[in-house]
């Protein structure tokens, strides 16, 4: 006869756990659907959070700048007060600074070719240094942006901006602009699409005063100590805040995700998903245990140690978690894949996928605690009293 002692290392307890679940197929399917629902919900919410979080800093992270200089008190990348262009020259004079250049970010009004307005964020960068500017260009060339009225937009926003072809003419703040190329996958956290342009074009399109700029970005000399140079910049430019790139990205991300509450609401949904999932799983595991209560009584009457009963109930929890997590995460990954074309991307890195297994497992085990108590409360003598 085939011995089954090694099944999942839990022996007959593991077999009993599995069979108890599989015995009532329709209820087991309800359990799995509940867990899958919870896993998908949590993965979506955290994935959205990560996607949003990623999109708040994508332009910052794709520049090669080592530091960012911005008007004092600015909280995010999108909205800043102007600073005087002289700060560029002051920055260049600080020892350890290899290069410094202006960068412009301004809200503007985009008139769609077919009619209608859209608020956009115009980003103007110095094309000569290549420190910042559009990336992932899928139509047109970076060089094309040198034309006086040239801009690039992302395919994600093509519908929103009403432009699908290179060469289309549009109006930004009443001034003529031509779309000379498209990028792919450059989302914005604010609902306003990015519009990339050369620094001069951006100045012209937004009517920004020539004596001012939004940012001074720059690089450090190869052997310079970032913290020291930053301290020197702070001392030399008292009207500004100076950040190293990671600091600035973190500040912008924290502003959008936490100060505005946008991220918090997404996280709250994730926690709700967890709670809903837990309640469903607890319900079903409890019902399964109650159904098999006489069997636990029989086991206890036979003299089975408590550990055996624990193993059966925890085995049910672990099996449910494992069989629910797998399809759940696959479904979530499929949705994430599909989201790549949309304006809100869902990011599910492998750490999240694996970590969610731990969460699912914890959820199922916690949910079975009530069942364990119930099973332990039965009097083994009850097996004779019917």
């Amino acid at each position, binding site marked *: *006869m085939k*011995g*089954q*002692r090694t099944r999942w290392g839990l*022996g*007959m307890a593991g*077999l*009993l756990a599995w*069979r*108890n679940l*599989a*015995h009532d197929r329709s209820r087991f399917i309800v359990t799995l659907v509940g867990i899958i629902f919870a896993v998908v919900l949590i993965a979506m919410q955290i994935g959205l959070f990560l996607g949003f979080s990623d999109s708040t800093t994508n332009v910052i992270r794709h520049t090669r700048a080592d530091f960012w200089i911005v008007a004092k008190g600015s909280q995010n990348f999108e909205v800043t007060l102007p600073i005087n262009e002289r700060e560029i020259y002051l920055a260049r004079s600080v020892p350890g600074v290899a290069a410094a250049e202006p960068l412009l970010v301004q809200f503007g009004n985009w008139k769609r070719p077919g009619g209608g307005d859209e608020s956009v964020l115009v980003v103007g960068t110095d094309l000569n240094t290549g420190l910042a500017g559009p990336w992932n260009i899928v139509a047109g060339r970076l060089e094309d942006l040198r034309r006086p009225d040239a801009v690039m937009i992302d395919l994600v926003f093509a519908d929103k901006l009403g432009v699908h072809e290179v060469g289309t003419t549009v109006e930004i703040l009443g001034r003529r602009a031509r779309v000379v190329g498209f990028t792919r996958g450059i989302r914005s956290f604010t609902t306003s699409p990015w519009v990339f342009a050369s620094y001069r074009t951006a100045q012209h399109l937004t009517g920004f005063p020539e004596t001012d700029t939004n940012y001074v970005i720059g690089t450090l000399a190869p052997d310079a100590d970032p913290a020291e140079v930053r301290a020197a910049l702070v001392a030399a430019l008292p009207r500004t805040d100076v950040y190293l790139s990671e600091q600035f990205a973190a500040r912008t991300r924290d502003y959008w995700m936490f100060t505005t509450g946008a991220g918090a609401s997404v996280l709250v949904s994730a926690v709700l998903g967890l709670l809903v999932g837990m309640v469903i799983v607890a319900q079903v595991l409890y019902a399964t245990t109650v159904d098999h209560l*006489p*069997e636990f*009584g*029989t*086991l*206890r*009457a*036979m*003299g*089975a*140690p408590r550990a*055996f009963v624990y193993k059966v109930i925890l085995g049910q929890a672990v099996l449910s978690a494992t069989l629910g997590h797998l399809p759940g995460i696959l479904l979530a990954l499929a949705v994430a894949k599909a989201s790549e074309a949309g304006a809100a991307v869902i990011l599910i890195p492998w750490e999240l996928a694996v970590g969610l297994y731990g969460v699912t497992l914890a959820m199922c085990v916690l949910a079975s605690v009530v069942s364990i108590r119930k099973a332990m409360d039965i009097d*083994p*003598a009850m*097996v*004779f*009293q*019917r």
Partner: protein
Amino acid sequence: MPQTNAHPGSALETCGLSLVYGSGETAVTALDGVDFAVSAGEVLALMGPSGSGKTSLLMILGCLLRPSSGEVWVEGRAIANLPDRDLGRLRLQRMGFIFQSYNLFPALTAAENVQVALELKGRDLNDAAGLLERVGLGKRLHNFPRQLSGGEKQRVAIARALAGDPPILLADEPTAALDSTNGRAVVNLLCELAHEQGRAVVVVTHDPRVGDLADRVVRIEDGRLCS
């Protein structure tokens, strides 16, 4: 003052056993001064009217219930002071239980039902086939309880009780749910198991035919044994 048992050879023995359920106005005296012994190789039928205390006595003998007073010896060992955990171990290693409603695990096959007991008792799981053969179910190893008749289910339960070769078998109304043919087969099997392998078997029953086949009949009325 620790008592000693009067019949050192007996598998189970009680002295002055009484049991009161509840307290105050609702107190029920289920057992009252029961002196009882059963020896190895003996089939004892415990008979009496409904509510006379048969099941209560069987539960005390099976260490599932502690008496209100009196002493119980299992294979000569007094159990009054043993903690619950040790009583569980005693049941597991020295006793097999057979219930009126079989109490099989419905999601497990006949063989797997027996294997649960074998694993709990630390025995080889491959013994299941032999045990089921012994009760005449060598061909039904992979059937689930719902695919078996009542008599077959009770025989699976007996095979499970036999796992680990316990010297004591305790059965509460094992034939009550069976027709006379199947009931007789089950009782004959219990008798064989007692006589061939020297087990002590206590069978609680209403069934007069069980009394006919048993080695000894003990009658109980209102919680007292009558001779």
